[in-house]
């Protein structure tokens, strides 16, 4: 797999690797219970956060199935950490990937998640040649569900009480998008007329 060129720039963000100095900023949103639902690593204190950070700093490329790529979302103005996105290569033969994101509650409502997810879909389909990307979301999290729909993902599943999460019945939505569904709307793929005629 070709190496990844970082940072990835979006309108308002830079997606980069995590740094050792991110502990405090990471901890400020990672210890939030809702943030933990679909990400790895339960973080209760500084030590937990440091362990999660250590792990994420190694997740810088997808080399084999099962690998995760984790990128920090930073504002391009002052480089403040506002959240992160993870792409897990879940299945090689069927080309499947799972995307997850966490956003600091203080930074919602500015389109950061939308930009980061769109950039990660470009990366998944164009750079890693993944066939289908899916995302999970809490059924009660209407903001996330709306966001994923706006991005163009299809609601594929709505599970009710299929599992317990921290002692309560869980409700889970699955959204998915195929490579051919993403590309037509993707701004970086305008074929010149010549190619279409050929």
């Amino acid at each position, binding site marked *: 797999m070709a190496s990844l060129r970082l940072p990835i720039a979006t309108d308002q963000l830079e997606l980069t690797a995590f740094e050792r100095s991110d502990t405090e900023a990471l901890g400020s949103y990672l210890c939030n219970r809702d943030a933990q639902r679909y990400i790895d690593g339960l973080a209760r204190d500084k030590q937990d956060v440091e362990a999660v950070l250590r792990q994420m700093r190694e997740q810088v490329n997808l080399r084999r199935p099962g690998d995760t790529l984790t990128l920090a979302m930073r504002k391009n103005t002052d480089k403040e950490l506002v959240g992160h996105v993870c792409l897990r290569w879940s*299945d090689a*033969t*069927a080309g*499947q990937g799972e995307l997850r994101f966490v956003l600091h509650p203080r930074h919602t409502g500015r389109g950061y998640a939308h930009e980061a997810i769109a950039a990660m879909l470009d990366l998944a389909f164009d750079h890693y040649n993944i*066939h*289908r990307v*899916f995302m999970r979301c809490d059924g009660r999290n209407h903001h996330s569900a709306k966001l994923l729909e706006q991005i163009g993902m*299809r609601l*594929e*599943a*709505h*599970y*009710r*009480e*299929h*599992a*317990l999460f921290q002692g309560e*019945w*869980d409700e889970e939505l*699955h959204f*998915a998008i*195929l490579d051919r569904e993403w590309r037509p709307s993707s701004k970086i793929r305008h074929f010149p007329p010549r190619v279409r005629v050929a």
Partner: protein
Amino acid sequence: MVLFPDYPLTTPRLRLRPFKRGDVDAVYDYRRRDVVALYLFDVALSREECALAVQQRTGQVALTEEGDKIILAAQHKESGSVIGEVSLIWRKQDARQVELGWIFHPDWQGMGYASEAAECLLNLAFEEGDMHRAMARCGTQNVTSWRLMERLGMRREAHFREHSLFKGKWDEEYIYAILRREWRQSRGDGVLASMNP
């Protein structure tokens, strides 16, 4: 909760009981057919493979831990023939989740036997088994299977497209589910009662 039912389970026209060594020919008679295997993970089975499957199934009679399966022969009361099989798999212990499955001989399809057997198994899962939710899955093209799920009162919870490969092609899959309270409600309403002659 450990589920070790008292066999046989009975329905108006069927007996659901553990498999026996003598069932190999009956199982071979449906599992050898391509039309039966079309939407199953397995291809059509040889007689030897059926013998092995039956041997395994003789021990699959109880749920004692996550991952355990109950697989029962559906025996037609009147003729004594084994006409198919139904399965119950314990998917999650803490959240009390099970998965249902069914395979019937083509000569015995279209007569409500699969519904009758599946209804009995759902009842076992929710009442004696104290399960919270039962799910079933099938390829979207397996119309008889998802119609059966709908007849049982299950809701379509998922429609996956190209999420995996199935026998070398892109798979498209439905998942149906029903919660215990929905099951009880539907029974109270007598939806399924009309099916039984």
